[in-house]
């Protein structure tokens, strides 16, 4: 490989280098090419990331500044990446396997007419390079040879740790203005509207407290909401609850709702119909609270409380408060 490896990086919420971008840089070092990064935004944003980038082995940071590049616009950002790659004759272009990273490199792939291997967990340089990548939501590992120049990869989250490079660099910042057409800016973020519900997102929550038909009414969910707040958990429900109109469909856990994978799932007054279990079988631990000891949910539960949730759940909340002294 002759040219450098170019990695698209982003700023994290705290202004420092985004964690997944760091992982992508560490991953890119396996290609044994000089490491460059490309970033979209003002130079001021790049400055606080410089030490991190240098520590990860980046020699040059290319910062794309353009009056129209403020908000995310996938085609325009991809143009900035593709342009940099062409200018550097990059041997490889990488990004984190985040939704944004995958979207951008898909655009780059289309623009350069090269194949893209998404969600890679390992790469072996060579001609052609070989990658292992995650498919089908993690159920399948695919080994592939990637014919293409530049080599286009995204890096599966947590495939490698963002460890510093053995030979740290002094990352230099170079700015450039990409050539954008109007069409590049057709799709862009024009406004951000916070989700109406607020609270913790169901799909990403570490803890989910869910209620089923046994909750009895929309008002009955107050005890679950109280527990969820104490645990920093999201509130979910079964299909029976959304059918009855007690909660919106967005709260439904199940085959026809959200499929979740929390650390712990607390299922209250849920019988455990297949349609529901299909949505929560990704949970690491399942605590079931149900007055019916024969309920099928107990077959899948790690912890079981046979009892009325309207007594059990407030008791758990009370214990939590007591333990925390609030």
């Amino acid at each position, binding site marked *: 490989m002759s040219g450098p490896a170019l990695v698209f990086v982003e700023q994290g919420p705290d202004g420092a280098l985004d964690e997944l971008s760091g992982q992508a840089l560490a991953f890119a070092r396996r290609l044994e090419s000089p490491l460059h990064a490309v970033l979209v935004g003002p130079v001021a944003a790049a400055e606080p990331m410089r030490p991190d980038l240098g520590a990860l082995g980046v020699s040059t940071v290319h910062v794309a500044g353009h009056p129209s590049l403020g908000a995310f616009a996938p085609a325009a950002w991809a143009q900035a990446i593709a342009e940099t790659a062409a200018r550097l004759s990059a041997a490889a272009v990488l990004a984190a396997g985040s939704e944004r990273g995958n979207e951008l490199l898909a655009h780059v792939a289309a623009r350069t007419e090269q194949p893209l291997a998404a969600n890679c967990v390992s790469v072996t340089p060579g001609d052609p390079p070989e990658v292992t990548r995650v498919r*089908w*939501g993690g*159920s399948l590992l695919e080994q592939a040879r990637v014919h293409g120049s530049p080599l286009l990869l995204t890096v599966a989250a947590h495939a490698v740790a963002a460890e510093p490079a053995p030979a740290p660099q002094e990352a230099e910042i170079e700015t450039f203005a990409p050539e954008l057409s109007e069409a590049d800016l057709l799709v862009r973020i024009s406004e951000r509207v916070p989700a109406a519900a607020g609270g913790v997102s169901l799909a990403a929550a570490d803890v989910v407290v869910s209620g089923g*038909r046994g909750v009895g009414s929309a008002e009955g969910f107050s005890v679950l909401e109280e527990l969820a707040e104490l645990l920093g958990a999201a509130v979910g429900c079964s*299909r*029976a609850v*959304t*059918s*009855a109109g007690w909660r919106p*469909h967005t709260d439904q856990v199940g*085959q*026809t*709702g959200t*499929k979740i994978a929390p650390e712990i799932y607390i299922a209250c007054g849920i019988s*455990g*119909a*297949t*349609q529901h*279990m*299909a949505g929560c*079988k990704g949970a690491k631990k399942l605590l079931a609270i149900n007055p019916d000891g024969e309920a*099928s949910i107990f*077959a899948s539960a790690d912890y079981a409380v046979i009892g009325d949730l309207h007594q059990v759940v407030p008791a758990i909340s009370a214990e939590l408060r007591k333990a925390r002294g609030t």
Partner: protein
Amino acid sequence: MALAAALAISGTIFVRRSRFLVGLVRAGAPVDRSGEVPERVQAEATIVLGQRKLLERIGPGLIHAFIFWGFLVLAPTILIAFIGVLDKHSTLPWLGHQGWFAFLVDVFALLVLVGVLAALWVRKVQRPQRFEGSHRGEADLILGLIATIVISLLLWHATRIALGRSEWPASWSPLSHALSHVFSGGGATKVLERVFVWVHVLAILAFLAYLPYSKHLHIVTAAFNVWFGRTRARGRLEPLRFDDEGVDEEDMRFGAGTSADLTWKQVLDTFSCTECGRCQDACPAFATGKALSPKLLIMGLRDQVFADGAARAGAGGGPDGGPGEGSGSFEPGPLVPGAVTDEVVWDCVTCGACVEACPVSIEHIDHIVDLRRHLVMVESSFPAEAEPMLRDVERASNPWGNPQSERADWAAQLGVRVLEPGDPAPEVLYWVGCASSFDERARTTAESTAKLLQAAGVDFAILGARESCTGDPARRMGNEYVFQAFAEHNVETLNDAGVTKIVANCPHCFNTLANEYPDFGGRYEVVHHSELLAQLVSEGRLKPGPAGEQAITYHDSCYLARHNDVRASPRELVAAVGTPVEMERSGKRTFCCGAGGAHMWMEERGSAINENRVREAAATGAGTLAVACPFCTVMLDDGVQSTGDELRVVDVATLLVEHVEGRPQ
């Protein structure tokens, strides 16, 4: 001269329009409806001549039958009247002189009039919901024309009797004879005789010209539509051909995106609808306040077919409105949302109640599925909540995404033989299905069935992890591609294993295996578990104790009772165990549980179909609601929990096993 002119005008209008309509049908996509002649003759005899489906509702059925049979009998009088216009002293040789025929004419003319008056009463006084959205003004006009034709005929006959000109013995026609006393037999009567025959003939010609522009077109198309209707295997969907050699890419269909994609039978369906609304009355989606009305679906498609046909002809399309050579610049617009809304397409549970109810053999499910196929495979537009099901079927071979390795877990403790590659084929392969393999509530059915087969000494085995989803939910969703992949895979597994006979407890698997896999090279003798178990009971290989007194009401599964005519066997099992009580909507007129057409994996709008059905079951007073389908089991059990009724939802196999085991051996 005047008659020739009237005939020419009316005939030209009729022929012109008919050519346009025939062109539209002929331009339809191909579908094979040949063969099975004896069954088609039988369908004509019972459904058309015998008015079988209409007479299932005796009141409106008789009204229609009177008018229909009346017109069959009165048909020769049209010719007689034309002769009468030309020459007041001539009539049809022989028949025109027959007293018995004149008698029949009087009787049937009266029946037609009774029919017309009763129909007007139904439409104006009763005003049933099924006519909502139909062209009611058109119907009134047609009834008026029919009345005019018949009354003028009777009056013409009466004046001829008064003038002593009747070629038949007047005493044979009591009604005309009685009416004849009104007329003096003088010069005024001579004038009136001419007036009545002209009114009669002109009304007939007006009818002829108006007919092909109206919903009443069914009097021409219905007989053809019934002839080309499905005869056997009604639960089978027409497969799409994806990679057949000899199929041009241009001719490849991915369902119906525009009116140009409809098959000729589907076009003929739309021309046959007379907007009677029997389909709508039977539809569970309509009954629970959803957007779908099967009647409005067909009417919407017809409007689009007409509009596109006219526009294509205007744009210099092929002859008679077909696409033909150089079909001009016309591009038809999408059927969804042009002819019907997206909601309508997804509300359907493919239960077939509409198809069963339709007196002219319109096949609504084929329309719905073709619209879905286009939406899913071309537009990728379908209810978001069903996406995990499609993904799980593709990825995990079952619609809940459970590991295949757990498919046979239920069978391990029962010692059921799992057929491994190379094993000798059993006498009967038990196809368990995904629901009975994985669902907690449905699994009981698999256990019961296996225990009963063991008790009866049947040589059977299951495929275990080698069994996959049949592809039915994907197919009913419109994802024909996924379905065919599974069909080919399963057929290969079954054929390699040397399977000849299959028993399935899931009516959806049963329907797919029996009616749809033959299209993919899988031909087996397929029976439903209720059929096999009833046979084992009647042969004495299973010996249940004496039937108890507990009242049991049996819910027919659509895919059993309606699509496959399995109605007796489950009832025999119920009768062997307890005291059967029937719901009003039973047998082939059953009401869906709400799960069909992949609705098991979709969210329901409006009120719940399953609750509607559970309330009907509870109203029988029975404490047990027997079912013979795993999806009905889950849906109705959910329904019972919602309504709070005291009902035990249980499969017939479980009822039987409890009764066999409970009996001291």
